[in-house]
């Protein structure tokens, strides 16, 4: 199990290095090599799914001595939520490598950066202490910087700098939080131990817990992103290349929520109890605001970006409600949103490659020329809206049901988010796909070829599978959700 855990980190990295070493004259080999290696990682993740740590709380499996004189070690481990997110990231890397067009797949920098990004993301999900978490959290930025900077759209410079500065600004708070925790832990353990096992036994004063919660959560919330801190997201999504958008929406946003579930709540529960109402209010504002702004968008990519703000608001609402059902729903919604948003960005990428525009008004009647594409788009939109029987419904329903007890009014407002989602998604579908063909460029659009269909198919199947049989995915997160909700309930009782 430990070997597999580290190979999740090293296989993508080595494959990236391998691709950098291949001469440019053999550029048709970049994609097959990347796909082969990401298939290895994907298989390993599937194997982890049947392993002994796939349904547990976080277990530290391996420790490295890093700076001995300070007593800092690096820890790595696995849990149910980590396994699911590892699987999600591997799947998304695999399908985005399959889906990207020729100008991206024949550039070694693009394929290599994507694989390096994969390695860093896997690192985040297996880190077992604050320092390695922070290291991988920041290391994400380098490949993302190149992906957005080199292969981005017109306004990529602004968007990239904004993305980097926002994230770095947030991670400064995480950094200070890590330092503070380390110093506190030094007072108890005599060394700067910040691994998750030591932290759970660290007893903090209420004021310390509050400060630390604020420091960590602020950094993670920028990444989620929650309502007033979300402004980097639409810019980043619009300017990023398709594969970058898929990874950004599919996995990078989850890193923020993952950090809150992994660090902020279990270790600084008192702080969580003090500020959870604020987070709940902000996330409901985010749900409604994101949805309303999405309605008004004329750029389909920006529309999906704002819908991400709305959907991630559901995740944060579920987390802040703090019950078993709502946290479970939040984790499932993280996975679901990764699948649907990834699929939507991929679909937008397909049509952008054909028409080189993302404006909704430039389309119309595309259903006639691209029937298969239109059908898949409609299916994915339904999943995104949360139609019963598809995956979006499972998470959002659990979140709404779970948080209704804690926040009756807020949850009622949040439920409107689902309605609004139907408005923006279906209206966009109607404008783009139905009716007569308005522009003649749209007449001869070729439908999805077999490669493109193959790359979207796994995501579509997963939407259906999770929607019909949510028990399976739920079984991986039960342990963790009950652990989190028990911790929260325990601290509530203490008060």
């Amino acid at each position, binding site marked *: 199990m430990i070997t597999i855990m580290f190979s999740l980190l090293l296989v993508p990295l080595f494959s990236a290095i391998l691709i950098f070493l291949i001469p440019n004259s053999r550029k048709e080999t970049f994609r097959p090599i990347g796909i082969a290696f990401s298939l290895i990682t994907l298989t390993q993740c599937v194997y982890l799914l049947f392993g002994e740590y796939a349904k547990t709380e976080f277990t530290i499996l391996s420790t490295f001595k890093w700076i001995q004189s300070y007593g800092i070690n690096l820890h790595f481990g696995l849990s149910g939520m980590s396994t699911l997110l590892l699987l999600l990231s591997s799947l998304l890397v695999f399908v985005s490598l399959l889906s990207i067009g020729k100008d991206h797949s024949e550039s070694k920098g693009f394929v290599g950066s994507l694989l390096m990004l994969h390695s860093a993301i896997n690192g985040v999900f297996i880190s077992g202490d604050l*320092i390695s978490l922070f290291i991988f959290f920041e290391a994400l*930025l380098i490949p993302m910087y190149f992906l957005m900077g080199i292969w981005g759209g017109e306004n990529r410079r602004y968007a*990239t700098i904004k993305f980097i500065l926002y994230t770095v600004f947030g991670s400064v708070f995480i950094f*200070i939080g890590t330092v503070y925790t*380390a*110093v506190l832990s030094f007072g108890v353990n005599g060394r700067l131990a910040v691994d998750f096992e030591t932290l759970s036994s660290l007893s903090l004063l209420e004021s310390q817990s509050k400060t630390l919660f604020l420091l960590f959560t602020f950094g993670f919330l920028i990444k989620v992103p929650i309502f007033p801190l979300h402004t980097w997201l639409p810019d980043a999504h619009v300017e990023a290349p398709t594969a970058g958008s898929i990874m950004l929406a599919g996995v990078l946003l989850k890193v923020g929520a993952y950090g809150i579930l992994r660090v902020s709540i279990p270790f600084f529960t008192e702080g969580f109890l003090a500020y959870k109402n604020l987070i709940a209010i902000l996330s409901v504002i985010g749900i409604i605001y994101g949805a309303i702004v999405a309605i008004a968008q004329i750029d389909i990519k920006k529309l999906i970006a704002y819908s991400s703000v709305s959907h991630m608001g559901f995740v944060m609402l579920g987390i802040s409600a703090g019950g078993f059902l709502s946290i479970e729903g939040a984790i499932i919604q993280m996975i679901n949103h990764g699948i649907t948003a990834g699929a939507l960005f991929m679909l937008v990428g397909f049509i952008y490659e054909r028409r080189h525009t993302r404006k909704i008004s430039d389309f119309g009647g595309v259903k006639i020329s691209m029937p298969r594409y239109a059908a898949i788009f409609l299916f994915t939109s339904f999943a995104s809206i949360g139609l019963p029987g598809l995956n979006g419904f499972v998470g959002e329903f659990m979140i709404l049901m779970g948080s209704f007890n804690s926040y009756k009014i807020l949850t009622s407002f949040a439920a409107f988010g689902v309605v609004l989602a139907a408005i923006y998604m279906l209206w966009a579908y109607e404008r783009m796909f139905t009716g007569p063909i308005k522009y003649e460029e749209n007449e001869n659009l070729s439908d999805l070829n077999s490669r493109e269909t193959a790359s979207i198919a796994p995501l579509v199947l997963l939407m259906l599978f999770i929607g019909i049989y949510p028990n399976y995915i739920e079984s991986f997160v039960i342990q963790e959700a009950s652990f989190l909700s028990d911790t929260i309930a325990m601290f509530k009782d203490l008060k």
Partner: protein
Amino acid sequence: MTTVSEILGINYIVIAPTLALLLTVIVLLFCTITISTPIYVKKYVSFIGILLTLFTIFLKFGLFLTDGVSSYFTEKILLDEFSLIGNVLVGMVLLFTFNSFWKTSELIEDKTTEALILILMSASGFLLMIDAENFIMLFIGLEIGSISLYALAGLNRGDQLSNEAALKYFLLGSLASCIFVYGIALVYASLSIIGVYETSIAISFIGPDNVPLTTFVGLILIIVGLLFKVAAAPFQAWAPDVYQGSPTGYVGYMASVAKVASFIVLARLVAVSLTFIIDQFDLFFGAVVILSVLAGALFAANQSDLKRLIAYSGVIQSGFILSGISSGVYGISASMFYLITYIIQLIGIFTVFSIISGQLSSDFQISNISGLFKENKFITITLSIFMLGLAGLPLTSGFVSKFILITNLWSYERYVLVTVLMLTTVAGFYFYLRPIWVAAIEKTENVVEKIQVKNSDKLLLGVLATLTIYFGLLPDTLVNITRWMVEGYL
């Protein structure tokens, strides 16, 4: 039976590195004046001289093992952990910058020997400064080192910027030296002491509360003199002009050697002389740190000349290093770690600059590297590693050094400093990533053509970049070394 030389503490091993450098200089002089020798002989002579220096530094470790911390030459030369590590660092700086400064000197045809002599002399001066126990020796070392650097800055006579740099450096540097000497005089006048250890003994004797104001002023003036050399704000005004104007091949050496020597001396001053009264310098050091990082970040953000950008980044880094020096013994060790990793990145960056724009050039606009990645992948990648290291991104040594430093500051409850330093780090990402953007990402018409990089340069850059990443992944060895430096002062 004790001989006179034992009473005086004459020991040639302890000054052997300085002597080795002087010997090399004399041989070089001999080679030029008395017999005319081909140019490669000079190259080998100076390189062997540097290797000899490193060997003698190695001998000093042996001496330290038998003698421990001790002073020689009637308490003028000191042998302690700081001087040992300082010697090693100066030796390493010489070794790592040899390639650049040799090529530059070769280009200045009729002044090749002078340039080499100036460099080796300045190194010997800074070695003396690091070894000095006595303030007078400290001053002599500082002057030998600095005056050579002033001349080095202006060696490219045909270049107006180079002349300007030399003059500015000279005028402001001598002003700083005046301040330094005045400080020594005040300390001597008030307590009749001129030694590093004497100061702490005298202060412990009269009690920290009874230290006269004159002594404080004197000590602060001494520190200001040193802060000038490391370009901490508000004494940073010379740095950008000097970095910009000096021949690019020399700047790496000039910047790093002065920083190494001055920071080692500052660290020893704080750890030894000021142990009992360091609390009263908190405000002073705090102000300098905050000014340095803020001024550095503010000015660095809108520089179009990369050498100036690195100069201002040096101001920021000086602030960081200083913040550790002024907060406890472990802070000093963290600062030393920071210093070593920073020097590695600094030398690397200037090596890259001199490869791109030529050794003798003075100003280095950011447009000089636009589209660099297309034809020169290796240089761009190493430059990016050094820049990310300066920014403090994880997986590079910059992150580890910042982490250790900030942890120390936090445990000393210096929350204001931590806040300011971290905000500067965020700002740093803006201007450290810009060269990478221009070099690798931005699409441009006129890309830099393929530059022939010599194998020696490739090796050097490879080693420096590997060290930057190595200390980011496995910092344990270096942390232990820096911890060992300060163990005696706990």
